[in-house]
C-alpha cells in the first residue's frame, strides 16, 4: 500500500457512479503535493477530471495542461493517438500517406479494438521517461481515470489481444511491450474504486477475477468511497429504540442501519479480496472539495 504512489502508472477503475473520477483526481492531487510531476489522464472524450480539478477549465482537454502546480491533465483521443503513432513509427512521407488515405481511415475505423489499443498506447507513451512526443517532458506518475469495470478490462487487455492476433510485425511487437508494462506490478498499479454496497462490491470481486484472467494482474489497492458516518454503538441503538418517538430518533436509527449495512459490505469486500480497503468518508455528506479527499487519502497512504 505504501508504495502505491511509487508506481509510474496507476489505473483507476470500478463500477459506474462510485466516484472513480474524483478518486483519481484526489490521488493525483496528493501525488503532486508530494512533489511528483503527475498527469491525470482520462479517455473516451471525457473531461470530467478537468471539471473536478478546476471548474473554470474549459476546452476539449486534448492538450496536456497544468491545472494545479505539478498536476497535469489530458483527455486521450484515439484519432490523435493514431496520427502520433504513425508519425513515430514511419518515415514522415509514409505517415502522411496513411493519415491521408481514405482506405486506411476506413480500415482503422472498422478494425475491432483498434481504438482501445491506440488509447492504451497513448497512456503508455505518457508514462515513458523517454517520451516519443517531440519536446514532451516526462511525468513521474500517470494516473488513468479508466472506463468502468467491464470496458476498463477490455481496454487494458486490448494490447494482449492484438499481440495474440498479430503474431509478428510492428503492431504485435508494440502491443507486447505495452502489455508487459501494464502487467508489470513494479510499474503499473491497478486501483478499484467501490462503495460499500452490494453491487459495487460484487463488481469489484468480478474485476479482481477478470484482471487475473485476462491480464495476469492483481489489484494493488481498493478505495471505498462515500462511507457514511458510523456514529452509533449497538448500546446507543438499543437506547434509541427505547425512545422511538423522540425527535430525530427514527432518522438516527435509519442512519445506523445504513452504516451497519455498509460495514457488512466492507467486511465482505475485505474477506473476499484479501485487501484492507482505503476508506473515504468526505463524499458521503455533500460534495467535498478535492483537497479534503486528498487529505483523507494522505493519512492512509504512507
Amino acid at each position: 500500500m505504501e508504495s502505491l504512489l511509487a508506481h509510474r502508472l496507476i489505473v483507476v477503475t470500478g463500477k459506474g457512479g462510485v466516484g472513480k473520477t474524483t478518486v483519481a483526481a484526489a490521488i493525483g492531487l496528493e501525488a503532486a503535493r508530494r512533489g511528483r510531476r503527475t498527469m491525470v489522464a482520462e479517455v473516451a472524450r471525457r473531461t470530467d477530471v478537468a471539471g473536478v480539478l478546476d471548474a473554470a477549465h474549459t476546452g476539449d482537454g486534448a492538450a496536456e495542461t497544468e491545472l494545479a502546480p505539478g498536476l497535469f491533465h489530458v483527455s486521450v483521443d484515439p484519432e490523435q493517438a493514431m496520427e502520433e503513432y504513425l508519425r513515430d513509427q514511419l518515415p514522415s512521407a509514409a505517415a502522411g500517406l496513411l493519415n491521408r488515405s481514405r482506405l486506411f481511415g476506413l480500415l482503422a475505423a472498422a478494425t475491432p479494438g483498434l481504438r482501445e489499443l491506440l488509447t492504451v498506447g497513448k497512456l503508455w507513451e505518457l508514462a515513458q521517461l523517454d517520451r516519443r512526443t517531440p519536446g514532451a517532458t516526462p511525468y513521474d506518475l500517470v494516473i488513468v481515470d479508466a472506463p468502468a469495470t467491464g470496458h476498463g478490462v477490455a481496454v487494458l487487455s486490448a494490447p494482449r489481444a492484438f499481440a495474440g492476433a498479430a503474431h509478428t510485425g510492428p503492431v504485435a511487437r508494440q502491443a507486447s511491450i505495452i502489455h508487459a508494462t501494464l502487467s508489470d506490478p513494479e510499474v503499473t498499479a491497478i486501483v478499484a474504486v467501490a462503495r460499500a454496497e452490494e453491487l459495487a462490491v460484487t463488481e469489484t470481486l468480478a474485476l479482481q477475477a477478470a484482471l487475473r484472467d485476462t491480464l495476469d494482474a492483481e489489484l494493488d489497492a481498493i478505495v471505498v468511497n462515500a462511507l457514511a458516518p458510523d456514529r452509533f454503538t449497538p448500546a446507543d441503538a438499543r437506547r434509541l429504540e427505547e425512545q422511538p418517538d423522540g425527535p430525530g430518533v427514527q432518522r438516527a436509527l435509519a442512519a445506523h442501519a445504513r452504516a451497519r449495512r455498509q460495514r457488512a459490505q466492507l467486511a465482505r469486500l475485505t474477506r473476499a479480496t484479501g485487501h484492507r480497503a482505503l476508506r473515504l468518508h468526505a463524499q458521503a455528506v455533500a460534495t467535498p472539495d478535492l483537497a479534503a479527499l486528498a487529505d483523507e487519502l494522505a493519512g492512509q497512504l504512507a
Partner: protein
Amino acid sequence: MNLSGKRVVIVAGSGGVGKTTTSAALALGLAADGERVAVVTIDPARRLATALGLEELGNEPHRVETVDLAGELWAMQLDAKRTFDDLIELLAPNESAARDVLGNRIYRELSGAMTGSQEFTAVAKLYELHRDPRWDVVVLDTPPSRNALDFLDAPDRLTGFLDGRALQAILAPTGLAARVIGRGTGVVFSVLSRLTGIDLLDDLSVFFRSLSGLIDGFRRRAAGVKELLGDPDTTFLLVTSPEREPVEEAIFFHGRLRAAGMPFGGIIVNRVHRAPETDPEVARAELAGELGERLAGKVAATLRDVEVLARRDADAIEHVKRELGVADPVLVPLLDQDVYDLEGLARLERCLRDEPVG
C-alpha cells in the same frame, strides 16, 4: 409517470443511479396494468435477479410466475457476447458464412473489446423482442455507459463499422482484401503491412471478407433499430440520483435526445433525502435529558448531515427542472432498504406513479 400506449421504454442514465431496479419496477407496473411486458436487465443485483428468476440460463426472457398480475412479466439478463453471435447467425445468408465470422480469430479476440459492443447488442435485443408478438411492451435497462453517446450512437456505429463504403473499399476487386490476398504492391498496402505485419493484415482481410455476406442484413437491421428509437411509441426515461455527476450526465443526455429528435418521456430522481422534521439543536435539547448529552449530540449530528444532503438534493432537483424544462420530475425518496424482491419493486412502482409510499 404515464407510459400508456408506449411499446418501447428505454431507461437511461449514469451507472449506479438505480436504472436496473427502476426498469424492473416500471415493467412490473405495466404488467399489473394488463400488458405483456419483457424487461431486459443488464446487471441486476443477485437478490433482484433471484426475485425475477434470472438465474436460469439462456439469452431469452423467462416469465416471472411468482406474482399475480393482470398481464405478464417476463425478464431476462442480457448476454452481450451471445446476442452478437446470435445476430451473426441470424443475418448470415447461410451457415458457412456464419461459421466463418464466428470462427475468425479477429472476431473472437477483439469483438468484446470494441467500444459500444454492449450498447449495440442491447439495442439489437430490444429490436428483436419488440418485433416478437409475445410481448406488448419492452423495457430496456441500458448498459452502464461511461458515455451516454455510446447508446444513442449504437445503430450509427453499427452502420459505420460495417458501412457499405468501408467494406467496399476493402473488399472491391481492387480493394485491400484483393491486395492482401494477391500480395499486392499498392503503396498504401505496402506501408500498412510494414506497420502491422502481414499476418494481422491477412486475418483482417479474412475477417472483412467473411463479414461481407452480412452487410445487407446489418444495414437493414441498423436502419430498423434507428427508426424504432425515434418512433412515437418509444420513450426514453432518464434516471439520476441527486449527485452532481449523474445530474450533469442526465442533462447532457437530454440535450442529445432533443438534438437527435428522440422521444423524451420524463426524468426520475432516485434516492432523494427528505429534510429532517426537527431542527438538530431542538432535537439535542429535547433528547439530552432522556438519552444523555453524548447520544443526543450524535442524533443532532446525524440530523445536520441529513440537512446538508436534503439541501443538496433540493438544489439538484431545481437544476434539473430548469435545464430540462420539466416541471414535475418523479422524485423517489431514499429507501431504508435496498429493493431486492417483488414486494420492494411494487413499493417502488407506487412511488413512480406518484402514489404515497405505503
